[in-house]
């Protein structure tokens, strides 16, 4: 049993479990599934700076902060309790592609050659870690949601603006991963 759990879970197990988060959150407290708004609540709680966008009663949304704290803990437990003893398998074409840029360590969930504390002070590392994060935070809030709020919750409730947003997430990702990122990784 534990052996099975420790292996990487296939999409047809993980996807439906993630989809079940939608009814679970609705039934246990009438909450719409969404994660990126937690970043907004953190702003509202810590650095509202008199900006109208952050002047709301964030305490009413505190469930969302409990939820993301749980995700962080779950990430810890997932690695500590059920870590996969085998190396992560990646597509051979991706391995060849990344090999050109000197990325060959697939043991972590993020490539250790790109994301580490000393890389933070290089131009490439700064771009990957800091600029990338900034775009995630700015973009999700501008779009009014992220993969969970738009792609999963929004599409589950047949919201067409969420379909537009989801298509744009994918378009942006395709552009970056195929046309721009190779130049940055080369740096």
């Amino acid at each position, binding site marked *: 049993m534990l052996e099975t759990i420790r292996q990487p879970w296939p999409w047809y197990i993980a996807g439906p479990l993630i989809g079940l988060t939608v009814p679970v959150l609705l039934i246990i407290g009438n909450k719409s599934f969404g994660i990126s708004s937690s970043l907004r609540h953190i702003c509202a709680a810590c650095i509202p700076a008199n900006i109208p966008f952050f002047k709301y009663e964030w305490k009413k949304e505190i469930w969302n902060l409990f939820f993301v704290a749980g995700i*962080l803990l779950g990430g810890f437990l997932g690695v500590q309790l059920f870590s996969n003893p085998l190396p992560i398998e990646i597509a051979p074409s991706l391995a060849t592609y990344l090999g050109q840029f000197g990325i060959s360590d697939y043991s972590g969930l993020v490539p250790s050659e790109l994301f580490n504390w000393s890389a933070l002070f290089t131009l490439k590392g700064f771009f990957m870690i800091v600029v990338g994060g900034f775009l995630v935070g700015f973009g999700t809030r501008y779009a009014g949601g992220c993969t969970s709020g738009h792609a999963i*919750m929004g599409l589950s409730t047949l919201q067409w603006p969420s379909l537009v947003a989801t298509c744009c997430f994918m378009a942006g990702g395709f552009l970056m991963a195929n046309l721009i990122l190779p130049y940055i990784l080369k740096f």
Partner: protein
Amino acid sequence: MIKDINEDVRALDTICVNESQLEHKWWHNLKYLVVGILFGIIFVKAEIISWFRIQEMFRLESFHMYGVIGSAVMVGLISVFLIKKFDVKTIYGEKIEFHPKKFNKGNIYGGLIFGFGWAITGACPGPLFAQIGSGATVILITLLSAIAGTWVYGYFREKLPH
């Protein structure tokens, strides 16, 4: 007046509208912590928070992420359909509410910007938290930067096209 501002600001955010009429003690929130923990474990075990899986998705090298997102949406759709059809109530007996999302141009511009960030970091906001938990401590900086990005959006919001 304060209330009006609050409603306007909250309405722009599709997720920031759900509000229970019931007052609960703080420990009721622990159930969301538990759901979050299970969710984080799924993230790790299905490698959804793997930078490599996200690159494979955008480079069309693997079906994995499409399968995950597609099947999650299918289960979500069916669940929402059943909740509406049978008028399922919350555990507190409240009616379950759905909030229609209003389209604005931010869905497009913001969506593209988030897509760029997603392909760079290999993470959307949820996975950022799980990656930190999994031991990639430098991702804490990515998370702080994402919070800064959210703040900068809030600061310039009225000047941005919506």
